[in-house]
C-alpha cells in the first residue's frame, strides 16, 4: 500500500473517480496546469484535459453557479474554492440554490456536487487564509458537511461524496495537507458519510474534534493519560448530519464532554454539538460540557497559535472536566 499525505490522497480520490465516471469534472481557480495552489489537482489536467479540469475566471459565484448547471444536467462537478475564506462570493448560490434545489423543485432537479476547499489556521494565513466556516453551512438545511482528518479517511470519504446524490461541502484541513502520511489503499474504496470514528477509547471524558484539531485532541488525551485521566476521542469526519449515536453512546459512558474547534465560539458548530448532548443525554452529564474553540475575533496573524484551541488549551479543559465535582 502506498504512503500518501492528505494532498496525495485527495488527488488520488479525484483521479479514481474521474477515471471511473466521465461525468466527474473539476473546476476552479488555478486547478488546471498548476494543479491548484496546494497542488491537490496536480496531474489531473494532463490526464483528463482542459475540458474536465477547468481553470475558471476569478469568480467563486461563477464556479458554483456553473457547477449547479452541470449538476442539474446530470454531471458530477467537483468545484474547488481556493480557500474557504473565499467561498463567500458563492454563498448565495450555495445556500439559496445548491442547498434548496431538490426541495424547492419537488425533487425534480437534484444538485449533486462536492465543493472542496481548504480550511483552518496554523499556517500563517491571517484573517483570510485561516477560517473555518462550517457552521455557516450546517445551518442551511440540505447541505452535507465533511471534514476528514487524515489521508485514508479523506480518500474514502471523498469518493463517497462524489457518488452521493446530495451536495456536499468537503473541508480539507490545510494544516494537515503535508503533515500526516499514512498507508492508503490504491484504487477504489469508500467510507460511509455520516459515521464518526472513535479514534481512542476512554472512560472519563469524551473529546469531540475533527480536521487538524483531532491531532491536538489526541495529544491532549495522551497528556492527560499520564495524569490518570482516560479520554475518549471522537473524530467526527462528517460534521453534518452528525453521527449522533456515536456521540451519545460515548457521553453516556463518560458523562463528560469537551468539544474542540478552530472557528469562533459563538454560533460555532460546538454550540450545536453541546446542545445535542444536553438534549439527548442530560441526565447522564456529570459535568457541564465544555467548548474549546477559537476566540470571537477575526483570525489573527502573529498570535495565531494563541488563537487556536491547541493542546495547551485542550489539556486543562480535559482535566477540569474529568475532575469536575458539582
Amino acid at each position, binding site marked *: 500500500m502506498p504512503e500518501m499525505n492528505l494532498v496525495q490522497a485527495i488527488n488520488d480520490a479525484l483521479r479514481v473517480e474521474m477515471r471511473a465516471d466521465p461525468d466527474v469534472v473539476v473546476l476552479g481557480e488555478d486547478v488546471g496546469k498548476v494543479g491548484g495552489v496546494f497542488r491537490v489537482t496536480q496531474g489531473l489536467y494532463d490526464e483528463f484535459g482542459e475540458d474536465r479540469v477547468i481553470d475558471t475566471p476569478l469568480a467563486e459565484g461563477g464556479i458554483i453557479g456553473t457547477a449547479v448547471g452541470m449538476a*442539474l444536467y446530470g454531471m458530477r462537478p467537483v468545484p474547488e474554492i481556493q480557500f474557504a475564506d473565499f467561498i463567500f462570493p458563492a454563498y448565495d448560490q450555495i445556500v439559496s440554490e445548491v442547498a434548496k434545489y431538490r426541495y424547492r423543485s419537488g425533487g425534480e432537479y437534484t444538485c449533486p456536487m462536492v465543493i472542496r476547499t481548504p480550511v483552518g489556521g496554523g499556517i500563517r494565513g491571517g484573517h483570510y487564509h485561516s477560517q473555518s466556516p462550517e457552521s455557516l453551512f450546517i445551518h442551511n438545511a440540505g447541505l452535507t458537511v465533511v471534514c476528514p482528518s487524515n489521508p485514508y479517511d479523506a480518500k474514502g470519504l471523498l469518493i463517497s461524496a462524489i457518488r452521493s446524490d446530495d451536495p456536499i461541502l468537503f473541508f480539507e484541513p490545510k494544516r494537515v495537507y503535508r503533515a500526516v502520511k499514512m498507508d492508503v489503499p490504491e484504487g477504489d474504496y469508500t467510507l460511509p458519510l455520516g459515521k464518526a470514528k472513535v479514534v481512542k477509547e476512554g472512560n472519563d471524558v469524551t473529546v469531540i474534534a475533527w480536521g487538524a484539531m483531532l491531532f491536538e485532541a489526541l495529544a491532549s488525551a495522551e497528556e492527560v493519560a499520564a495524569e490518570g485521566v482516560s479520554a475518549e476521542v471522537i473524530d467526527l469526519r462528517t460534521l453534518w448530519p452528525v453521527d449522533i449515536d456515536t456521540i451519545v453512546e460515548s457521553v453516556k459512558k463518560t458523562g463528560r464532554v469537551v468539544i474542540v474547534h478552530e472557528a469562533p465560539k459563538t454560533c460555532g458548530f460546538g454550540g450545536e454539538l453541546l446542545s445535542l448532548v444536553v438534549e439527548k443525554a442530560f441526565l447522564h452529564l456529570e459535568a457541564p460540557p465544555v467548548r474549546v474553540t477559537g476566540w470571537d475575533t477575526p483570525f489573527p496573524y502573529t498570535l495565531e497559535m494563541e488563537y487556536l484551541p491547541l493542546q495547551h488549551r485542550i489539556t486543562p479543559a480535559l482535566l477540569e472536566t474529568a475532575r469536575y465535582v458539582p
Partner: protein
Amino acid sequence: MQTQAQVVPIRTPDATFADDVLSVIERDGSLRSETDPKLPQETVLRFYRAMVRTRIIDGQLERLQRQGRIGFHIGSLGEEACILGSAAAMRPNDWIFPCYREFGALLWRGFPLQTYVDNMYGNADDVVKGRQMPDHYTGKPYRFGSVSSPIGTQITQAVGFGWAARRKGTDEVVSVYFGEGATSSNEFHTGMNFAGVMNAPVVFLCRNNRWAISVPSEKQTGSATFAQKGVAYGVRGVRVDGNDVLATYKVVREAVERAARGEGPTLVEMLTYRLGGHSTSDDPRAYRAQDEVEQWRRTDPILRLRTHLEALGVWDESKEEAYKQEVEAELKACVAAAEAKAKPSLESMFDDVFAELPWHLKEQREQLLGGPRAKDHH
C-alpha cells in the same frame, strides 16, 4: 446624485426604435419583408392564441389574488410577445431557464394548465409540493428549469447547464430569462463572463420592461443599452422590439441556431414594458406616471399582432370572443379542481431535503406528526 450628465437615456417609447432594434410588424399590421421570419400562418395564430391565453390567465389570477383565494401572482401583462416569441424560438430539445414572469413560456412547452394552477394553490398536486410561493414552478419533463426568487441565480446555472449539454455531445441550447434589473446582479456578470470564456450555447434573454419594481431602467445602469453589456464579455449583443412577437422569434431563433452550431452565446435585449404592477403586491401608481403607461398601451403586443391577423382576415372579434370563453372555461375548471384538492401532507415537509431522510429529520417529522396542529391562521 448627479446622474444626468452620465446616463444616456434609454430610448423613450415614442421615438421609433433605431435601426439596430429589429422589428417586423408595422403599426398597420403589415410585415417588413426584410425581417419577416415568414412563418406559416397557423404558427402565427398559435403565437397569438398563446399570448391571449397568457393574458387571460394573468387577469384571472390577479382576480383570485384580490379575492384572497391565492396568495400571490406575478404576471406578464404587456410582455407576452417577448415571452412567447422567445419560447417559441427554442427547439423541442432546447431548455428554458426561467426568471419568474414566464408562465406563458411554461404553458407553451406543454405544461398542463391544471398543474400550473395547482402551483398557484400550493396544493398536494403542486409539482413543487406547496413548498414555494405561487409562480415558483419547476418543469423538468418540459425541459424547463426551476423558479427561484433570488434575482439572477439562474443565469450562471444556465451557462453550466449549456456547457454540460454540449460536453455530452448534444446540440441543445439553453435560454435564460431575466429582467433588465437583474443585469446589475453578480450572477449576470459572472454568467456572461463564463459564457464568453466557455463559449457556452446559451441565449441570454433580457426582458427590458423598463422597471425593476419601482426603479426605472435609467437608474439601473449608466450604459445606453442593455445589449451593449455584451461588449464587456466578448458576447454578441442584439436588441429587438420585444413587443413584436415575430421579431423576437426571429432574433432568438438566430441566436439559438448560432449557439447550436457552436458559435457561442448571445445576449438579447428585448424592449418591452411592464404594463401592470410588479406583482400582486405592488401598486405602480406610487412611483410612475399614468401617462407613460398609456403611451405604452398603444404598443400593446397583442393588439399589434391582432391588427396583423385581422388585416390578413384570419382573426376577428367573434373568434376572439370564442377563444376567450374557451380559455376562461378551461381555467375555471382548473381553479375549481385545484381548490378542491388537499394540502400537501405534513410528512412531505421533510422529504427532499436530502436524498434520504437523516436521523434529525426523522426525529423532527415524528415531533411534528405527534404534536399539536397549528391554527391555520394567516
